[in-house]
């Protein structure tokens, strides 16, 4: 009886512990072994390596740009879902819903602002992240394919921003999308078909609004999520963030390895375990590639728990703080409702396409399709064209001065075109001074 009482008493006292233990299979780590274990016993954390190089954590190396982009995407998804409870993709209702978000919905203003500024921020950060990866040579083998996925992600980000731009259905949105889809229509052979598929009609109207809404809210986020997942997976499989070849790899001390089929580890019982060059292991799996850590522990690595996680948490809070601050002080624009008889002069594409529009003002095909197409193609093929193996993991390595110069030129020219298109073009696309 007492035993039962004890066990009942014990189970009552243990209730909270039972609950927590049923959710969290392992307690918070207190030892190195525990810290290592968190990285492969947790669903969310097992994408991360057990140990991460110190260099990868240095803010000046990556500036956290990839993480910022990802967190901005998370903020966009969260705010986007909340906005979806109020928005209707109908030409007669959309603008009124936007007005309601501004005047009638609690936190409507900050929600919309956060969504808008996070979107612009994501386009900018993804671009900057691409620059960082280029300038540190982090697209070299084995990371070529991850670079390609990254370029695809950049394109998907632009498309997401573009499809979302139309949804307020005000003059700004309508004419920006009219310009953007017209540029798409300049493509030879398929241009008109692409434009028609995008718009569902000859001109921007209810069909385009519905299509853009579905793309923006369902299709592109899904595709983006899949690509992001593969992108993160490839980071792990390619060996984490690229780092420079520091000292030459230490000479491997040959270690004799005995392989036993007995899965149970051999434990010292009573007698002192002899520390001998021979170690015993059971086979977990066979891994190819430069990942063999046996007998060689990287000196400049730290545990992911807590170092990497603290860094990620910091970047997350920094991103949230940044978006919140900007959204508090600056309101997302909402212009007059759509009036198809009144194009603004000039009608401008969203800022990330203004460089394109500036180019188009010189030549419709070459400016809008030809040159950008070549740029995208070169970006995609970059790791297969530039096969040099040197200068990885460092900013502006001397050995890569040629590649870095070309890319820097590409970045500067594009930013310059965007600046011209934004500030120096007025009515009839004439040159005007913003001062």
């Amino acid at each position, binding site marked *: 009886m007492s035993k039962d009482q004890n066990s009942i008493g014990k189970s009552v006292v243990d209730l909270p512990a039972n609950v927590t233990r049923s959710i969290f299979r392992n307690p918070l780590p207190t030892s190195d072994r525990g810290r290592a274990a968190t990285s492969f016993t947790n669903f969310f954390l097992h994408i991360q390596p057990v140990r991460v190089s110190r260099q990868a954590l240095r803010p000046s190396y990556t500036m956290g740009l990839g993480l910022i982009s990802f967190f901005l995407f998370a903020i966009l998804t969260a705010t986007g879902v909340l906005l979806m409870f109020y928005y209707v993709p109908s030409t007669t209702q959309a603008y009124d819903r936007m007005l309601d978000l501004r*005047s009638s919905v609690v936190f409507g203003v900050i929600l919309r602002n956060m969504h808008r500024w996070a979107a612009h921020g994501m386009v900018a950060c993804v671009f900057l992240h691409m620059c960082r990866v280029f300038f540190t040579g982090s697209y070299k083998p084995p990371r070529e394919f991850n670079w390609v996925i990254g370029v695809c992600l950049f394109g998907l980000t632009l498309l997401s921003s573009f499809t979302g731009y139309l949804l307020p259905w005000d003059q700004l949105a309508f004419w920006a999308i009219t310009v953007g889809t017209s540029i798409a229509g300049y493509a030879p052979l398929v241009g008109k078909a692409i434009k028609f598929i995008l718009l569902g009609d000859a001109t921007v109207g209810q069909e385009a609004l519905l299509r853009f809404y579905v793309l923006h809210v369902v299709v592109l986020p899904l595709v983006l999520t899949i690509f992001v997942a593969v992108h993160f997976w490839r980071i792990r499989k390619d060996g984490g963030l690229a780092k420079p070849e520091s000292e030459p790899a230490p000479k491997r001390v040959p270690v004799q390895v005995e392989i036993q089929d007995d899965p149970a580890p051999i434990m010292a019982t009573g007698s002192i375990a002899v520390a001998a060059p021979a170690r015993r292991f059971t086979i977990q799996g066979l891994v190819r590639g430069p990942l063999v850590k046996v007998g060689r522990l990287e000196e400049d690595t730290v545990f992911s728990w807590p*170092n990497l996680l603290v860094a990620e948490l*910091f970047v997350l*809070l*920094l991103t949230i703080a940044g978006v*919140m*601050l900007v959204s*508090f002080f600056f309101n997302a624009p909402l212009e*007059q409702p759509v009036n198809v008889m009144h194009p603004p002069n000039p009608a401008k594409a969203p800022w990330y396409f203004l460089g394109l529009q500036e180019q188009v003002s010189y030549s419709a095909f070459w400016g809008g399709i030809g040159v950008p197409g070549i740029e995208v193609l070169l970006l995609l093929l970059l790791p297969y064209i530039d096969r040099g193996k040197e200068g990885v993991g460092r900013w502006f390595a001397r050995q890569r001065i040629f590649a870095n110069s070309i890319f820097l030129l590409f970045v500067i020219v594009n930013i310059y075109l965007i600046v011209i298109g934004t500030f120096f073009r007025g009515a009839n696309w004439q040159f005007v001074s913003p001062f």
Partner: protein
Amino acid sequence: MRLALALVSVVVLAGSGAVVLKETKATWQDHQKAYFAQARLQAKSDAERASLESKAPKIEQTIVTAFGSSRVERCESCHIASDDPRFSSTSEPLRTHPYSAAMGDIYKDGHWERKHKFSEFGCTSCHDGQGRGLTKADAHGEDEYWPTPMLGYTVQADWKKDNATHLHGAEFMQANCAQCHKERTFAGTALVSRGRELFFKEGCFGCHRIQGISSGTIGPDLTEVGKERKLDYLWGHIADPRAYTPTSVMPQFKLSDEDKKALVIFLKSRRGGSPSDSSVDQYKVEASNATPVPESVAVVATAIIAAKTPEERGRQLIEGYACLSCHKLDDHDGGISPDLTREGLMRDHAWLMSHFQNPRSLISDSNMPSFALPQKDFDDMSAYLMTRTSALPAMTPAQTFQTLCARCHGENGNGKGPNAIYLDPAPRDLTRAEFMSTKPQLRLVSSIRDGVAGTSMPPWGKTLSDAQIQGVVDFVWSQYVKGKPRQIKARKLPDTNPVAMSADSVHRGEGIFLQRCTGCHGRKADGHGPNSIDITPRPRNLTNTAFVQSVSDRRLFESIEYGVDGTAMPSWIDYGLSQNDVGDIVNFIRSLNTSSK
């Protein structure tokens, strides 16, 4: 890292706190609390006082469905005292909305009863503004993109400063009264009626259509202009049309500020149908007005006093139909169109009748509206104008020029007279030496004596003797041209087109025209090619039938082959056109101008 993490966490928490505070602590709550406090002081019973103590601010919302789409009105969230008569001397927003008999309110048993109850009408049906807004900037429509700012109270940021000073005042709300109170004699819409009067008196009815009132076709349809445009645009466009629409041909009428205000209020009241009509009723109104007597005619018809002769009637009609809001007659000058003082010496009855019926049949690019008036009225007005034959008193050529020519050609002879911007083709710039000095004197004399067909240059042959005309030509030459007549080499030009008119020739000519000429003369040959904006004088409208038919083949050949000195017309013989090519082009141009319009 821990420190950085702590700092950024604090920022996020503080930011979240600020966001929450901003959303939950609103100004309208403060206003309501102030109201409750003041009402408590004035409370007459303990029960009332107690209920006010326990009152918490909440959004005061009315949903108005009577006028078409359902509207949300939250104005009373700040203006909570608007129906409380005890607050008539408090400052806004806690002031009682005024009561007045003019608005239909009734004073009975010591208190007012409001006719236009807020629960039925809301606020924005009279005041405009944004009903759903809960901040002053939102609710009053101060955002420059909000289409209906509060009438007479709110000025938006992008309104021109000069206009904005005129756009304050409760009287602008009469435009909204008129949405339901459409009767012409309604006391509360006096400025709307005055505006309507001016719409006729100033000649606006001739160019602009307002359904049920006028049927002009030159200017935009103003039936719904009150819905489409804000006060700033309406005022500004009347005060200076080209400041808002650079290519507008709308005259800049000289109106006093009071008149402009009345016109603006009248136009703002044009919303295309009353909100109190059901949609079916609106269609009934349209159908029954299918062929009304134009109000413009009806208004004038009632004002004409019995006249003994057609000419006398014509004179009254000319004043009644607001011709003088553009034209000049004796001392009354609209400043926009030609002087009719000696019209009897310049035109004949047939010309005047054709011109009345359709000005563009005689002057292709005239901006005079085609007034839809009864034939008899045109007859009488022509009869009157034909009596205007007073001879020009004796004067020097200089005085003659200032009296007759300066109105169009400018007192400096540079083609920039007060009328000039309204005339197409524009009056000739007589100071352009390259042009004037290469034209034979005979041509200048005949232009003055016989006029230039298809343009506003009238024939002065009956007003001026040959000697007077020569005097004017000499005066122009010495005063304005300041150049020497240039001897042009004799040019080999045919007197008539050597290429016979045929479908083939026209087709070839069209081909050359499309290839060479459309850049200036336009694809429709109307002189509005893409280059035409930058050229002075403008390229010729080659579909100006009256003009083209008055010009000889020889002159066409000369203009095309050798260009026109002093204009941008190049000499095409230098660009490879043969005489046969030019012959085809001439046939093509002639083919555009065969019908007598």
